[in-house]
Every structure is written in structure tokens, then in C-alpha cells.
């Protein structure tokens, strides 16, 4: 039984080899025939014999056509330009919004509020549309609380924002974080409104 199997295997191999050989030969023949065909179908340039009047009329027609085409192109370009202008303005506005809109936090907290999540979702969309952009997420605190603790808290705020963006599919490699604690307030006033503004994660384009 063993012997038969080996023999069978050998036979199969033989058939396969023959097949490959046949294919190769036919392929070769096909290529050769193709080459021939190309030579045959080489275009022949016709030399036309024309009068001057014919040529002038033809030139005028051509000129008209060209002018029409140019006008059409110009109209198209104008339309496109105004379109991209709007797109560009929209893009700039989106960028501005991305950079200006901070994620706010409660006092002594690095937890994301529902509002913070909504803002981060919008930021994730923007980052999705602008895949080449790399960002720095800064964590900040208000002046209440102590310096060293706030440096740590600021880092946790930046990290919380970053983690949420990762969960929304933004690659970590596009983001870095830094904490400034209470060193860089947006509003230097000493009141509740200023403190609320200053407790934030802020987004900077690299």
C-alpha cells in the first residue's frame, strides 16, 4: 500500500510537470503572436493636402471653440474657488473651536462630566477628519489647593481627557500630555467664575 502511494505521488508529479511545460510553451507562442500584431497595427500618418481658405475657416472655428472652453473653465474655477473658500473658512472655524474649547472639571476632580464627554466627542470627530494633526493636552487647576498636589491633579485631568479620546478611537501616538498645575490660569481673577474657567484640559496643536 505504501509503495502504491509513493508511486501514485510520483505519477501526479509527472502530470503536473507536463502541464506546466505545456502552459509555458503556449504562453511563449501567445507572446510572439502579440508582438507580431503590434507591428502590423502600427499607425500610418496621413498627409493632407488643403487650401489656405479652408485653413483660415478651420482656425477661426478652432479659436471660437477654444474661447468657449476657456470661458467654461473660468466659470468652473470661480465656482470651485468660492466653494473651497467656504470650506476653508469652515475648516478654520473647526480648528479654532478645537483649540479654544476647553474641557472643564469640578474642584479637586479629574472626572469627566457629561459636558466634558460631549466636548471630547466633538474633538475626536475633528481629530478623525484631521488625521495628520498631533496634539498636546494640558492639564490645569485653579489657584485653590496647593501647588504640588495641583501639579498631580492637572496631570490626571490631562490623562482623563486623553484616555477618553483613545476610547473614541484616536491613536495615543498622536497625543501627549503635560500638567501645569495652577501655574497658567486663563483668568487671573480670584472668584468662582475664574476658578471654573481655570480648571481645565486645554488642547494645543503640535
Amino acid at each position: 500500500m505504501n509503495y502504491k502511494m509513493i508511486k501514485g505521488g510520483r505519477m501526479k508529479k509527472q502530470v503536473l510537470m507536463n502541464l506546466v511545460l505545456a502552459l509555458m510553451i503556449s504562453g511563449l507562442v501567445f507572446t510572439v503572436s502579440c508582438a507580431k500584431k503590434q507591428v502590423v497595427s502600427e499607425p500610418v500618418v496621413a498627409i493632407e493636402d488643403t487650401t489656405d481658405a479652408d485653413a483660415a475657416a478651420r482656425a477661426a472655428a478652432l479659436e471660437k471653440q477654444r474661447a468657449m472652453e476657456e470661458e467654461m473653465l473660468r466659470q468652473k474655477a470661480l465656482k470651485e474657488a468660492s466653494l473651497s473658500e467656504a470650506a476653508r473658512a469652515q475648516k478654520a472655524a473647526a480648528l479654532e473651536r478645537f483649540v479654544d474649547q476647553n474641557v472643564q472639571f469640578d474642584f479637586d476632580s479629574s472626572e469627566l462630566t457629561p459636558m466634558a464627554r460631549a466636548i471630547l466627542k466633538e474633538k475626536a470627530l475633528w481629530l478623525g477628519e484631521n488625521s495628520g494633526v498631533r496634539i498636546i493636552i494640558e492639564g490645569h487647576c485653579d489657584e485653590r489647593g496647593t501647588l504640588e498636589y495641583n501639579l498631580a491633579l492637572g496631570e490626571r485631568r490631562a490623562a482623563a481627557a486623553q484616555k477618553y479620546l483613545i476610547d473614541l478611537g484616536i491613536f495615543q501616538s498622536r497625543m501627549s500630555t503635560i500638567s501645569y498645575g495652577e501655574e497658567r490660569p486663563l483668568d487671573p481673577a480670584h472668584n468662582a467664575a475664574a476658578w471654573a474657567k481655570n480648571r481645565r484640559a486645554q488642547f494645543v496643536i503640535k
Partner: protein
Amino acid sequence: MISVLDSLLQVCNRNLMVKERQMKGRALLIFFLVLGVVLLGRAHTVLAQHVYLNINEPFLRKVPVAVPGFKSLTQGVNEDRLGKEARNILVNALDFTGYIAVLDPMSYIENLAKKGITRAEINFKNWTVIGSELLVTCGVEESNGDIQLKFRLFDPFTERLVKGKVYTGKIDDLRRMVHRFCGEISFHLTGKWGVFSSSLAFVSTVGKDKEIFISEFDGYNPRQVTRHNSISLSPAWSSDGKWLAYTSYAGGNPDIYIKNLYQIRGNLINFKGLNISPAWVPDSFSLAATLSFENDQEIYLLTGKGKIIKRLTDSWGIDVSPSFSPDGKKMAFVSKRAGTPQIYIQDLDRGTVARLTFTGGYNTSPAWSPEGDKVVYVGIANGEINIYMIGIDGTGLVQLTSKAGDNEDPSWSPDASLITFSSTREGGAGIFVMTATGGDQRRLFSMKGAQTSPVWSTGNENN
């Protein structure tokens, strides 16, 4: 008898130490002060059982001290002026202690500057009658810029010379010479050398930046020691006063710089993430700091060169602001492990951790007393930021500041008699000082910009 012998031996040892220190100082050529300590008389060796002042006593009565005008000894042209200047320095320094009250010269009966400053020339009854418990006299000699100050400290009640010292130096050394004798007065009263030879490090704004400054103990003669043109924070002295560790954003990230103050060299701790809140281990070239390169803020022990020895804390969440017990065996720190920032004490040998603060929802910035028994810290309650003190066993909680701006960054004087801190009570942040019981709260100095994070060096020139 045995105790007297012991005391005598201690005195001998101390004198040896003084000598040794002077030799060292001269060898290092750090200071140009040439100090000749001459023992005036033998009274100082008379050692009765001495009861020291308890500077942590909440209702401490200040010791009344008389400081009559200093006497010009050789009628040199500058002696009167120098004498007045030296007396001012002494009076200000004694007032600074919080446990000495210099008596008003208007009440003095004798004019010792005219009459004479030695024991034989003083009528001590004239000093006891005005309530003076100590009497300081000084003679001034000056020639060609060389100054000699001959100080004597008397106990008018026993009519005894407590301490006599002669200091020799240049005009620029005047403050240091006077402050050394202030150290002697403090030592007589409290058994400790006081704060006079300490330096004060602090942070000040310079334009938009924050830089580290160093001044004398009382804020005199501040000089800028960092020029990073960046945010520099949290200065921390090594025990020997030679190294200053601090956090700076100079490289873009909050890193710890370990700066040698006498040579142009230093080390850097710049792991990924935070490198903040450095605190030296007492008497060791190692420090603890919060790092976050493992994506969680934990406290690590590092060498002075910035190499990690080991991680000290192990809890998810913020762990920050280490402060060591004087023996270096325990560490107070801030942790949010229970949901709010609270102060904990970790036994570094056993690894056990116990929560210290339970009152209030925000307690941070601990500073362990050099005496070892207390921790001062910052607490936020009722919208106020104040300084509190608590025993390391969790008893004896006291609020030290109240209704006077935001009060932060408490730090002890090396003799544990004073606490320096920053406060916004006068508008912008400035540096303040109070006694260890919250008394005599006053601003140390006025300077352009805002000042925060004051810390005194150990300063041990006298011993």
C-alpha cells in the same frame, strides 16, 4: 556630681566642635570671616542644672532682654556707627525669635556704653529693677576695616557672666558676627542655635517667569539662583545646605534639578511625565519625589544623582509631597487614596501606612517638625486656605492661621521655633513667619512680584 562631670565633658566636646568647624570653614575658603573665639572669664563653665525654655509652649512668655548701646573701645572713627549698626542687627534678630523681647532703651538706668561693659563695671540691680532677665553688652574695636566685637551675656539676677565671645572680621562680616552671638543667646535659652545661620530659599516671580532665590534667614540680601526663564518651583535644601533640589519647566517638562550651590554642577531627574515635589532624606544624599512615568503619581526614593533606588508608595491615584521625620525613618505625604487629599505617615522600614488627618476634605503640603513630634500642613475648610498643626499621633490639632488670605507652603525653622509660609493677606503672595504656636505673624520682607514656597536650610554654623 556625675551629671556635672557629664556637662563639663559636653562643653569640652562642643568647644572642640567649634574649633573644628572654624578650621573647616577656613580650609574651604567659603567665607572670609576669621573667627577668634576667646573665652572671657570662666563663668560659662559654671553649669547649674539648666532648664530650657519650651518654645512649643502655646502661652510662652517672652524673655525680657536688655541690650544697652554698644561701647566704642578705642574711640576709632567708625566704632560708634558700627556699634549702632551691630546693635540694630542684634535687636532685630532677637525680636525675630518670637521668644525674646528686647526691652525699650528708654527704661535703662545705666549707660554702659559710657560706664563700661564688663562684670565689675555693671550695677546689676539697675537691670533687675527694669525686669531684664538677660543683659547683652558689646564692645566694638575697629581699625582699617578690621572689626572686633566683644560680646557678653549676663544674668543680672545671679550677676553671672553666662557667655563671652570675641568675633573678628571685616565690615562685610558684621551681620554674621552678630548673628553668631544671637545663636549663643538662643542656645542659652532653648538649647538650640536658632535660625540665625540658616538661609532662606523661596520662589519669586520675575516678569512672567518664576525663579528660585536665596536670602539670609530673615529675607535680607535676596539673590536669584536660577535663571531658567521658565517656571521653577518647590525648592528643597539638603541637610548640609550644599544642594538645592527644585522643579523646573526649563526643559519643557516638569523635571527636578539638583543644583550644587558651591560648584557649577548638578543632576537632573527627567523621567516621562511629572518629576515634582523633591524632599531630601535627612543627613543623606538621597531624596524622595513624585514621578509619574508609570502612568500614576507615586513617590520614589532616588539618589542625589537622580537614580531610582525604589518606589515608596503603592496606591492608585495621587501620592505627592513627601516630608521626612528627622531620623529619616518615616515619611509624611499626601494621598488621594481615600477619595480626598489627606496626609498619611509611612513607616519606611516596615512599609506600613497610617492616615494622619481626618478633619476636613483637603489636607496637603505636610512639613515634619525638626523636633519630630508634629506636622504642619495646609487645610482647606469653609472656603479658606489655612495652616494647621497636628501631633504625629493624630492628637492636638491646631489651626495656626485664620481669616487672613490664602496661607500655604508651611516650613519649619531648624530649631522648630518658627514656621515660615506664604500668604496673600496683604494682596499678592508674600513670605510670612510665625512662632510654632501661631504667634507674631508678620511679613518677612517686601519684594517686587509674588513670593511663595519659603524653606530654611538647616544652618549649623554655631555648633
